[in-house]
């Protein structure tokens, strides 16, 4: 049973990278250019650089939350972590943003925030939550994040260019493309 599930999941993982002749996962690949999503790449090294942007930044895709002392942290899926000042809940708002490509989740203990920077486990010193800084990195702690990180597919449905594995997708733009993938 478990083997069957595994098999199904593997098929599931592969499914969006291939055109299904039965059209189940989408129409046949068009031979002409179509309007669709094209990946915006960054190198793995550069995409793993952590920055802090002070001030309120727009929230693109709300992700999970973490409460810590008078702050709330909210993941912006694949992009980073918003820092929210919750000193007075009635006036709570975003006050800064930690840029973390591929970010999916976080946890906090003492003055340290643990999160993922793509497939790495990183530790940020939160002594001053408004000036977080990286203090440790365990490379490759989350291997599945190499092919299953939050931005590996565009947010909307339709045609898109399958991303390469040697780089990191940091965003998607609309363009006239030779589509190689389709998202239901």
């Amino acid at each position, binding site marked *: 049973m478990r083997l069957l599930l595994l098999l199904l999941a593997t098929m599931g993982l592969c499914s969006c990278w291939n055109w299904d002749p039965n059209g189940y*996962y989408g129409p046949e690949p068009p031979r002409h250019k179509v309007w669709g999503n094209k990946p915006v790449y960054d190198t793995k090294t550069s995409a793993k650089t952590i920055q802090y942007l002070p001030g309120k930044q727009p929230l693109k895709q709300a992700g999970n939350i973490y*409460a810590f002392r008078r702050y709330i942290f909210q*993941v912006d899926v694949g992009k980073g972590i918003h820092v929210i000042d919750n000193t007075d809940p*009635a006036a*709570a708002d975003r006050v800064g943003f930690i840029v973390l490509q591929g970010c*999916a989740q976080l946890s906090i203990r*003492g003055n340290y925030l643990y999160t993922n920077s793509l497939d790495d486990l990183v530790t940020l*010193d939160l002594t001053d939550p408004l000036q977080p800084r990286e203090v440790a990195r365990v490379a490759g702690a989350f*291997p599945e994040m190499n092919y299953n990180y939050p931005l590996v597919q565009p947010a909307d449905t339709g045609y898109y260019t399958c991303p390469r594995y040697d780089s990191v997708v940091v965003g998607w733009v609309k363009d006239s493309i030779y589509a190689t993938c389709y998202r239901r």
Partner: protein
Amino acid sequence: MNKQFLLLYTALFLAAATIVAGCTKEAANSAASTPDTGKGGSLARFTIARDHLYAVSNGYLHAYSLENGAAPKKVGYVPITWDVETIYPYGKYLFLGSRAGLFIYSIDTASAPRMVGMASHARSCDPVVANDSVAFVTLKGGTACGPATSGLYVHDIKNITKPQLVKTVPLPDPVGLGLQDNILYICCGTAGLKVFNVSKPNEPVLLDTIKDGLYVDVIPYNGVLICFVQDGIILYDISKPESPVMVKKIAS
């Protein structure tokens, strides 16, 4: 069960969880005390318990020692079922929610988690919260996760090695959940935030349904219910846990 869903769940199962008032009250910030961990939601794939960070990744449960919090060090890992989606700590146990059921691991030996119990149920996605005697699990049927009936599943865990299903309450699209005293909050997406009285865990009583957003997960924290909604965060005053009062919405 395609990539889209896996991605969705990666997106959903983000932050880490440590519930139960005892271990989350802000500790005095002295070197001698245990560092406080704050509190995460119920949709987590890594979590902190007993000075270790536990991470679910690629069919393994990894243990990192946080003895030096500035430099997590991997101290052990055990193979687990491949489809574990959430991890929730309680005392010396980790509750792992998978599509095949609820697995209970003992972290008596923090570097070597060991499975001590399992509650099997129809396949589903299932965030978990627990207290001394009861584990509350939400199962979402009709999705990639499986055909189980969507709803709240209440397991008696007085005997931790043999969880007993004592009650199921059908609910539409339940996702994250949070427990404050005898009040259980369950996010049901567009169907709202369900407020249950669970003073008798095997007879949850629906008190209210709140519809200010599309709810994904909740954290009751210091008298405030922090809700992760599709477009941001909504904060409710829960000085009366049974009747949340909206105080702020922080949207995109």
